[in-house]
């Protein structure tokens, strides 16, 4: 039963990667940029929840909502202030700006909260579910369920609503969408808001699972989720989810059955492999460049 437990372990970690990866992928799909500050948005989300629950003694529900709204606002503001002025200039400048934003946020929180880790409040009963010898912690279960539910809602939103349609249109051809009367600026803002809001949820899951948060928590998580997004085909939401789960399981299996020292190597190896073999990712479309 150890084997199945390890799969579940991998899936629950993968669920968190997936939530973050969806944020990367949505922003890429619509704004055509890789928001390397996304990992830091997750950190901010975790800290907002911490501040509301532990420092302001607010109920859990209020803290979670505050965290999601706070992160969404942060995403929108970052886009308006840092990325929008660069729209139209080379992708390299945007990329460097994103890295700059990431350092800015990291160091801002370092100044505000110090480098010492804070303990994240307990939002739910800790413990494990034991089904036929398969051990799953409640938090793992929650993390997996939240990922599935969020992805479901998101897919519904994008495929069935007017706003979702606008997003798809902007993603396909920004100029044409604008000509058809779609407000491109608002659509991009909305994308950042949703992506960052999902990041906040990932941040809260992170805090609940590992109990400690520090200003650096987004860095590695962000990188792994980025790999998940590339693996699934960047720009594709189902792909990001599947990619996240695959990365999570691959990591768990490497630690469990090969060697824990290789776990990061395997994850980065997957990135190299996918870039060599199928650069568009598992679910990615091969878009022909029109000349």
């Amino acid at each position, binding site marked *: 039963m150890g084997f199945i437990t390890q799969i579940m372990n991998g899936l629950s970690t993968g669920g968190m990667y997936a939530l973050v990866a969806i944020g990367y992928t949505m922003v890429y799909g619509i704004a055509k940029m890789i928001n390397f500050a996304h990992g830091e948005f997750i950190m901010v989300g975790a800290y907002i929840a911490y501040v509301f629950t532990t420092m302001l003694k607010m109920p859990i529900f209020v803290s979670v909502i505050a965290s999601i709204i706070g992160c969404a606002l942060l995403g929108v503001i970052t886009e308006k202030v840092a990325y929008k002025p660069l729209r139209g200039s080379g992708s390299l400048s945007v990329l460097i700006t994103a890295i700059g934003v990431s350092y800015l946020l990291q160091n801002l929180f370092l100044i505000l909260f110090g480098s*010492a880790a804070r303990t994240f409040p307990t939002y739910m009963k800790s413990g494990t579910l034991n089904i036929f010898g398969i051990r799953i912690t409640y938090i793992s279960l929650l993390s997996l369920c939240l990922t599935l539910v969020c992805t479901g809602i998101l897919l519904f939103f994008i495929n069935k609503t007017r706003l979702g349609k606008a997003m798809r249109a902007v993603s396909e051809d920004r100029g044409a969408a604008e000509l058809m009367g779609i407000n491109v600026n608002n659509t991009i803002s909305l994308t950042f808001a949703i992506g960052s809001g999902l990041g906040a949820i990932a941040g809260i899951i992170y805090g609940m699972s590992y109990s*400690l948060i520090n200003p650096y928590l987004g860095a590695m998580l962000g990188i792994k989720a980025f790999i998940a997004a590339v693996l699934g085909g960047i720009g594709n939401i189902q792909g990001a989810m599947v990619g996240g789960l695959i990365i999570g399981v691959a990591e768990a299996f490497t630690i469990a059955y090969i060697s*824990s020292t290789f776990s990061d190597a395997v994850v980065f190896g997957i990135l190299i492999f996918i870039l060599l073999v199928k650069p568009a990712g598992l679910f990615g479309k091969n878009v022909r460049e029109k000349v």
Partner: protein
Amino acid sequence: MNYKKAIALVTAASLLAGCGGSNGSNGGKELKEGDTVKIGFIGPLTGPTSSYGIPVKNSIELAIEDYNNSADAKYKIELLAEDTQGKGEGANTAYNKLVGEGIVGIVGPVITAEGLAVGSASERNLTPIVSSSTSGDSVTLMGDKTTTRKNYFRTCSNDSMGGNTIAKAVGNGTVKVSKVAILTNSDSDYSEGCTESFIKQAQADNVQIVVQDKYPETQKDFKTYIEKVMTSGADAVYIPDYYEIISTMVKQFRDAGYKGTFLGTDGWDGVLSVKDVDKSIFYDCYYTNTFDDRADAVVKYVDAYKAKFNSETNMFGTMAYDATFVLIKAIESAESSDPEAIIAALEKTNYDGITGHFEFDAQHNPTKDLVVKTIKDGQYSYLD
């Protein structure tokens, strides 16, 4: 062309640095009562390890203040502190800057990586160094790992002592466990060193080791490791690492339903002071420590620290308070800023600090015995 220029510049710079250093070390002069003596601190004041460095710097300030205000103070001590960001390169820059500013000795560095980085340069200049936390066995040794570095002393235990002491406690039945799992931080010299010494002693005592695994520093998710440990039937887990990572690991172990014992080393100390930590998960934990913090002097220091800096100190800070006095006392008995005289005085250290009695052995480690501390019902306690 540019390349050559760069090399020339680097060579020139290193020559200059070398000059500054040797001038400093030869410029020892006799000290008269009331003279101002500059001592340095290098350690992480920013960056991810600053939670270790800041209490050390504050405690040195506190110790210097206490010394300067005491009636029998011979000199006026002044502190020059430099940030390393917890990096080896940062430590070198900080060290060279302090030497240029004419310090006679250093309290610090804080992290083993910093200690290894400044090791050979400081020996060339013979800068007296008293570190209260660089526990890596090799820090006080030369490249050959056997000869002692002339100028480098430490007041904390080294990694061998930590792993050895806790393994003995298991071997002789003080801590009653039968199957031990070991988890080691593969990116930490400290963790590796403590693991090695633990295994050596455990094998001598026929303690059964059922799992031996390593995790990278960046690992946050331990579910997979926990599953391995739990299926192995281990009734104790030995994790030699620092308190922040420990608090998340213990939490995940307890969440997963593990009810067994935890074993650790002095890095554990402070685990109950992690901000808002859930204390109920800490039971049946045993780890080594260099001092007994129930001592009146330690309690007095902790209160004074809180009053002055309005924050909590930790074991790094407590150890640094004593290390500062060890260096000051050596300068006092050398009556000179000559590094060789101070080093000779350090070798003869015989000082009663707040954390115990200090003398150095041939490898410049303290001769203190370690104590085994336990955590019961979320409270520190001792095995007496």
